[in-house]
């Protein structure tokens, strides 16, 4: 199996461990990734709300580039995944396709009729491969809260491989890895990602509710697949602790990191040392 790999802006900066762990886990499972050549930002949740055409062209540009490579597109970041999948759906609509094609052709990029599929790393790991035979170091005793957020599974007509309301794919993967999964009711409650900067107080409030529930359930860490959620939950966790005068120190790990650990890959090779909130309690618990 081979995919055109689209890392996106975050995986080369604040979410480097997601990039590193995706690549090594996929390699371990025999899946080949070829980085999408000359990829650009997907526009996130912001661009189409400034100009629909700019947002759709940004999202579709990467899809068109993957078409050129004749490969399905694989993204780890939930946002990049969602926007690329949305672009594929938009290209099925004649009017949208015309508008998108006109813009991209000015950039010298042609849109072909060959419709590729856009996949997220969670979808591939949960639905295409059986990782259970490869587990070398079961995560015994580790309690995890799987957080899906929004863009990984919503809306269903763009994503479609897991429930938009109460998804289970990461729960399933974590269990295969030997972890105990808590019943996280807030698993699809939004952390406020796209409005973090202009509406910081609101977003801190939303994110705090997630941290509170995970802690009250006794989770050792939150497991996720979105760098934007991780920005709120991890990078801004110290700010939230300060604002509300609480202490969480709750490790936030990408799903590929915990799968990597269960596959027996060394933490350093997964990029686990790159976290801002220390994942040491998790490693200690596992005796790694």
């Amino acid at each position, binding site marked *: 199996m081979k995919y055109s790999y689209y890392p996106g*802006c975050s995986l080369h900066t604040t979410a480097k461990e997601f990039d590193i762990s995706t690549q090594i886990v996929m390699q371990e499972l025999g899946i080949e990734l070829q980085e999408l050549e000359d990829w650009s930002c997907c526009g996130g949740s912001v661009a189409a709300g400034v100009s629909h055409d700019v947002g759709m062209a940004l999202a579709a540009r990467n899809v068109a580039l993957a078409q050129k490579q004749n490969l399905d597109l694989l993204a780890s970041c939930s946002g990049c995944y969602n926007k690329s999948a949305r672009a594929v759906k938009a290209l099925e609509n004649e009017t949208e396709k015309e508008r998108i094609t006109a813009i991209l052709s000015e950039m010298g990029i042609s849109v072909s009729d060959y419709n590729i599929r856009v996949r997220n790393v969670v979808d591939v790991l949960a639905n295409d491969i059986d990782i259970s035979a490869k587990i070398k170091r079961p995560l015994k005793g580790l309690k995890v809260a799987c957080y899906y957020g929004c863009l990984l599974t*919503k*809306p269903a007509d763009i994503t479609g491989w897991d429930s938009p309301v109460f998804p289970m794919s990461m729960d399933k993967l974590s269990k295969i890895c030997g972890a105990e999964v808590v019943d996280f009711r807030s698993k699809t409650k939004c952390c406020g*990602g796209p409005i973090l*900067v202009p509406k910081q107080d609101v977003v801190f409030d*939303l994110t705090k509710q997630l941290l509170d529930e995970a802690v009250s359930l006794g989770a050792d860490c939150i497991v996720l697949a979105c760098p934007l959620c991780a920005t709120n939950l991890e990078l801004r966790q110290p700010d939230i602790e300060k604002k509300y005068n609480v202490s969480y120190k709750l490790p936030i790990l990408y799903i590929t990191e915990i799968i990597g650990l269960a596959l027996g890959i060394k933490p350093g090779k997964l990029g686990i040392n790159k976290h*801002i909130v220390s994942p040491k309690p998790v490693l200690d618990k596992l005796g790694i």
Partner: protein
Amino acid sequence: MAAKKCFFGMKVDRQVDGDKMNPNFLKKVISEGGDGAAIAACMQCGTCSGGCTNIDRMDLSPRKLILMVQRGDWETVLKSESLWLCTSCYTCTSRCPRGVRPSDVIEAVKAIAIREGIQNDSTRFNQIFVELVQKRGILFEPELMQKYGGMEAMLEQAKLGIQLALKGKMSPFPAKVKDPKKFNEVLEKASQK
């Protein structure tokens, strides 16, 4: 609009009002990606509002916002703070039994609001974000913080910035696409349309 009597305790505005749609406004919403037929299909059930991330903080619930779009009540819609409290979480769109896609309608209205000259922190942030994405094709976050929040934001984020740099997660050199000039020109033109 004349006030309507409360009928059997039902909220006064809770009714399907599709016949009063304003075609001009609707046209704009559609050209920014809203689905006109779907908007007309809204039956005002309130499912979208029930699951909305920020419903507690909004002045117009997604249900009401769709009703105002149906009625063509420009002012109310464009001035609503709800546009900037919406997190594009897609919960409304996932749950709507009539396929209305309130999140996409809000996205369309946001773009219209910016064109109509609505200005606040959110519009400023969103515009700077797009400007910088267009500039290089790949977002360079420190520049976004600096342009949006100035020196104050840079100082506030300095500690996190240093931590990220030490972990090799922030380079002082922005990444870019192969031909950023062309990239920017084409998208700039597309945004003017």
